[in-house]
């Protein structure tokens, strides 16, 4: 199955907030949570004439690409309502071609609640090695603070305790 994502032409993101508000309305996310958020860099001056000031609508771990809508063939809400019309939904393969067409774009594939997406922890139950049945002889001595096996810092003879 094709992987879907959003192609964002951030050259024209004006930070209007429509993507965030419509995402929250669609998913009923409370204050403080959202599936898309506009980040910013700038304004700062590149030189006397020119400014760097970009907004980046980025997808959070609560973006499900509006699964219910897209299942019915519609586009995600942020795509629908974006005032600058700069968000495109589609298979990554197609979006990658569009990404090639002009600069100042990025392509993003979100994962909804990635920890949850991994699923519950399920032990594999596979045990590759069985403990071997081999008789063992004691050394009779307990060592401590031994950093190297040839540097004996101390040694306690436990032979009596062991009662051999």
């Amino acid at each position: 199955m094709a992987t879907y994502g959003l192609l964002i032409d951030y050259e024209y993101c004006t930070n209007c907030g429509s993507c965030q508000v419509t995402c929250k309305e669609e998913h009923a996310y409370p204050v403080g949570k959202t599936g898309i958020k506009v980040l910013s860099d700038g304004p700062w001056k590149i030189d006397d004439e020119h400014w760097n000031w970009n907004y980046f609508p980025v997808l959070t771990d609560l973006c499900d690409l509006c699964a219910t809508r897209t299942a019915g063939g519609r586009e995600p809400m942020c795509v629908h309502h974006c005032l600058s019309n700069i968000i495109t939904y589609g298979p990554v393969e197609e979006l990658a071609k569009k990404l090639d067409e002009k600069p100042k774009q990025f392509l993003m594939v979100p994962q909804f609640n990635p920890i949850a997406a991994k699923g519950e922890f399920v032990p594999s139950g596979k045990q590759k090695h069985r403990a071997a049945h081999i008789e063992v002889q004691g050394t009779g001595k307990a060592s401590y603070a031994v950093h190297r096996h040839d540097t004996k810092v101390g040694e306690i003879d436990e032979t009596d305790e062991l009662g051999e």
Partner: protein
Amino acid sequence: MSEDEFYKKAEVVKLDTLSDVNDIGKPWRYEEDGLTVTRTSPWSPPGCHPVGCGLKLYVNDEGRLVKVEGDENNPVTQGRLCPRCIALKDYIYNPARLLHPMKRDPKDRGNADAWEQVTWDEAFDIIKKEYDRITAAYGRESIVVFAGTGREGGTFAPYGTMCFGTPNFCYTQSGYACYTPRLAAIAYIAGTTYPEWDYAGALPGRWDDDRYELTECLVVWGKAPLESNPDGFFGHAVIDAMRRGTRLIVIDPRVNWLATRADIHLQLRAGTDTAMGMAWLNIIINEDLYDHDFVEYWCYGFEQLAERVQEMPPEKAAEICDVPVEKIYAAARMYAQAKPAAIQWGLAADQKTDGMQNGQVTVDLMAITGNLDVPGGQILPGTGAGHNESGFGFEKGVGEDLQKKMIGLDQYPAYCMIILNAHADLMLHALETGDPYPIKMGFYAGNNLMSCTSMEPKRWHDAIVKSLEFCIGFDTFMNPSIEASCDIFLPLSTVAEREGTVFTHYAPCTVTAGFMHKAIEVGETMTDFELCYELGRRLRPEVWEEFDTAKEFMEALRLGRREQGKYFDEVSKNVVCQIPVDYYKYERGEMRQDGQPGFATPTGRVELWSTAFNQFGDDPLPYFLEPEFGPANPELMKEYPYILTTGARTTAFFHSEHRQIAYLRELNPDPIVEINPKVAKDLGITDGQWVRMWSPFGECVEKARITETVDEKTIHAQHAWWFPEEDGSEPNLYGNFRSNINNLLPNDHYGKLGFGAPNKCLVCNIEPVSESYDTDMDLIWEKFGKLV
């Protein structure tokens, strides 16, 4: 052209990002997945300019609005929506929304807990009793209807003329420094109304229509269209044009987002725009870059204008505006040589004492470069445009004797006559002093003046509370103005609960006309038409005999028809219509009632030497006035070293509205003041710290954003802040005066014709404070997040 052609269904233009599964071609109402979907084209409330963006309202079988989506069938918005309509549900079902009439004993004014729910009948009875008592004692002129901005109710002149019968409909911003000065400038100079940039909004097929020519150069002058959707213009049409190749010049003291994308940004000192405009005229005339044919055949007074602008060489303007002179030359040449070119002139034009002159130089520039009424230039409304809202019912409802009593009419006819409004500043004096006569009763028409549209708002507050014996508020939510001064509250319907129309630019330049359809009913609310009609009939039945229903009144006022609402029902099914546009109308007699070629001015031409200005006693030619509060007064600058500019908009709010909408408040939780990093360093202000600002007129606190969007001499502060989550009773009054930047702005500094006010070019000082007033978003969510 017949009116039927006006209201034809607009042709859809599909966005490339829209899926193939969509609602293009759906009727105005349809069923989908058990929901009833109503397509509508909203105006207000919530407050907004009349853009009429396409909306689809999804209602379940219990009659509840469950979802709002942008309508792909609107040729301008094409399914796109700004956050305020996306969150419409949160406005409608907000726990703070008021849905029933209430009364309060006048001695309890300012007590938020003293309201008592009443029936509409009881409310009307109280109003009728007070109306009769007050008009018998003081006359109908003692009633003031406070006009607002944006909302339909805010400019609903029939409240004054037909409902209360007073000549004193009054927008209370000093010098009416909002839109009307620009309208007046073009009306007096060129005999037409608002010359909007041609963004192909009215052309079927939009940008690809054969008649359209892409604007080569768009000048965005003192305007933030992306955030404000000014006067009905869909702001992001600027982005649509940029993506097609339109290049920008931005003239603004602030580095806004568009400015950073412009070929040239003239970051002028706030309030010096008229000097800049005169310098552009100087360059364009002296370098022979003007349209000779248009000037020769269609303009009047070019020689005098050419002579006048010699007084403003670019080098002088560069000094006044604090902009490098070579940038001024480059911008003027770029604008003059681009074909077509257009200017989007914003609110900043009005907000200076020489606001009318700023308007004048702008119209002069549009004219001498030959960009009036050309594709991709400025579209001009022809004779058929607009509707006579302010004049509707004026003769009959007010009467000849009372008309003459309109406050300010004698002193400022150029102001009062063009908008049929009492003069704002003189109304304040009347409220304060009872001169020329006492003002005793008030009505807020879509207005919250103490938070937003009045300068020195505490002065207005005190004058209103003291002077008015009776006052009525009509709104969706409680607000500080109503809480402080009203005795009756009436609940207002939102766009989802009403029928109606929406014409871009309030009709003076209609690009699209839209229709509102009622999708839901909530509480016992009324629309402006219903209240004006129902209350009007109760107060003055003789004025209303000709209308059997509020809908007939609406049909007559908005559509010029009297067909018992049937005509409205018919055309409203189209939801949105593109009003046919035509170019070069002045060549064909379509700009004048007499059908003759030319413009509707005394000379028949665009009057670069204005006979109207001259007649009203102003200079017929443009002149620059140095801002009174600024570097021209070095003594003042010692105490108030920064230039204060205010009012830039955000998408989160419409002026003082929307502070209760949690998702919107989250976008902009606190009132923000922008301060340059160098200034912040000098004053020891850190990013996010609260600061106190003060001017000769008052003070307030806002939260600092340290940013290079303003230069080292300029401070920009957000406006219209109040805090609905706080105690509403006096003296706190929802924190209305704490972060109210209007505290720092004066009244009484308007221009010669009564228009213009220095609201965007004041001075202030600023210091850090140790307190924090940060909004607690958890509290907002708790208080307003749970819909009812």
